[in-house]
């Protein structure tokens, strides 16, 4: 995902002479190709996320499309008020990129777990939130992320994630649309971000146990695909939401807000994610996903218990 991001960024920078990249002193190696090609449109703001975000807004007000790059919680929670006041209120063309969604930097410890960022960014008026699942979704989303006006947030993994889509099928992706992965009759697992891999694994396990489970990915968390959710509610009685993130106010929260507002045919929504807690266990991404029941078997077991009326 990360390499796809930088490739798409360079392609857009060739098209848009007003595109500028600012980093908060991160991106070793990753940003080098961009820095080499566009040295005059690259700024290292140092380790100063608050000033960096306000500065990005100021540059955007002067006509720049400013991409702000950092990892974990640094370009989000650390400077949330700057995003609100300086970027969003001014409708500035600031594009915030967080590498390290969820437990990507699992072993680095709690400070580096990005597990509340979608909630935090989603509540701000005028901020679009993208959480692509693989490098193909990332490529599809980047075209929107870098060109649509206003503030946008892109949450991506590090790299090496499995690929689930064919780019030809999702080229021309429209912001706010869900991408169905497979259809089901008993329930759907809906995901945002790289955790789609767990949903797909769970779907296979559940199929072996006799359940027909659909899976869909939501590369855009805000605005969420309300139309698709309404259609699913008319089709199945249960929607599972799966996110490597807190279940409070994030992707699952966004789904609940839509479903609760439907006049009829409301499905039950079961949110799977971090249950309003921090992780202090040391482990890599796969370990922590399994520990918190966010891997394929964990999701399958939880879903099965719900479907059998046991949870």
């Amino acid at each position, binding site marked *: 995902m990360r390499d796809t991001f930088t490739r798409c960024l360079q392609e857009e920078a060739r098209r848009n002479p007003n595109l*500028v990249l600012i980093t908060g002193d991160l991106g070793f190696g990753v940003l080098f190709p961009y820095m080499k090609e566009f040295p*005059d*449109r690259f*700024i290292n*703001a*140092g380790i*100063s996320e*608050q*000033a*960096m*975000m*306000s*500065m*990005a*807004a*100021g*540059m*955007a*007000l*002067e*006509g*720049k499309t*400013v991409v702000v790059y950092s990892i974990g919680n640094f370009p989000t929670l650390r400077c949330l*008020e*700057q995003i609100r*006041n*300086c970027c969003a*209120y*001014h409708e500035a063309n600031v594009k915030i990129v967080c590498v390290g969604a969820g437990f990507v930097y699992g072993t680095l410890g709690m400070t580096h777990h990005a597990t509340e960022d979608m909630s935090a960014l989603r509540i701000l008026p005028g901020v679009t939130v993208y959480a692509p699942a693989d490098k193909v979704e990332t490529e599809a989303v980047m075209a929107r992320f870098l060109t649509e006006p206003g503030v946008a947030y892109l949450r991506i993994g590090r790299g090496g994630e499995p690929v689930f889509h064919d780019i030809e099928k999702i080229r021309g992706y429209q912001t706010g649309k869900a991408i169905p992965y497979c259809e089901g009759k008993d329930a759907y697992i809906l995901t945002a971000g790289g955790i789609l891999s767990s949903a797909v694994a769970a779907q296979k396990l559940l199929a072996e146990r006799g359940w027909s489970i659909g899976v869909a990915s939501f590369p855009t968390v805000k605005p969420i695909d309300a139309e698709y959710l309404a259609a699913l509610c008319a089709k199945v009685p249960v929607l599972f939401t799966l996110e490597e993130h807190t279940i409070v106010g994030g992707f699952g929260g966004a789904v609940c807000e839509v479903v609760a507002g439907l006049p009829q045919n409301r499905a039950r929504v079961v949110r799977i994610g971090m249950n309003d807690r921090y992780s202090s266990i040391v482990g890599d991404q796969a370990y922590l996903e399994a520990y918190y029941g966010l891997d394929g078997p964990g999701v399958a077991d939880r879903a099965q218990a719900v479907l059998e009326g046991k949870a």
Partner: protein
Amino acid sequence: MNYGKSELLAYKVRRHALDMTSRGGTAHIGSIFSMADIVAVLYADVMNHDPKNPKWPQRDRMILSKGHAGAGIYAVLAECGYFPLSELETHCRNGSRLSGHVSHKGVPGVEASTGSLGQGLPMAMGMAMAAKMNGEKHRVYCIIGDGECDEGAVWETALIANQYQLDNFIVTVDFNKIQSLASVENTIKLEPLDQKWASFGWHVIRINGHDHAALHAAYDKAKAAMGQGKPIVVIADTIKGKGVSFMENDVLWHYRTARGEEYDAALKELEAHKP
């Protein structure tokens, strides 16, 4: 040089601000009075700007980072002709576009909305950075408060602006020595403030922020420093509540609204010193 234009504008800013805060029942008159001479000099004689064309690309930019003194900016903009003076009467009234902390939405001449301290300054830096990238010749001015210098983002900005040699960036510190609850000295000490900025690599000019001759000279020097590769800070020693004796140097007037006899007394003093 005759400073009549800026001195008259400063008087008008104070005069409007007294009425606006009194009518609106709002605070921060002391903070507005302390910077009134600074904004008057900037808008009257220093900045290139065109009230008939607020988005003129070659204009100098001005961001009030101490956004709580917004009434002072609205007053100076209205006096310059950006919008009708009559609109000042709506300040802080229900349905108005002139909020207590300065807002740019629909208000010609306001470059950016501020009010959360430590944010307007780096926004202004972004504007200066963009101008540098574009090879543009205009300057970016920014006024910050002394209490605002408690914010870490002020010093983040000081570091970045130095690194990128933003000599088109002219910051003024309205150093009135009083912050929200008490004096700066008894809250978070800033002195030696000029040495602090100098050690961050800035070109420092320190003057009496109510002396129009000194202000003009300071901004002449600041403009002349463009091309020397250093951002510029004008540390303006000011008096909180300057212009009304019973408001001067009294933390009370960070919050208090002049009404009744106090309003009358303040008005009398301002009128007595009308240029």
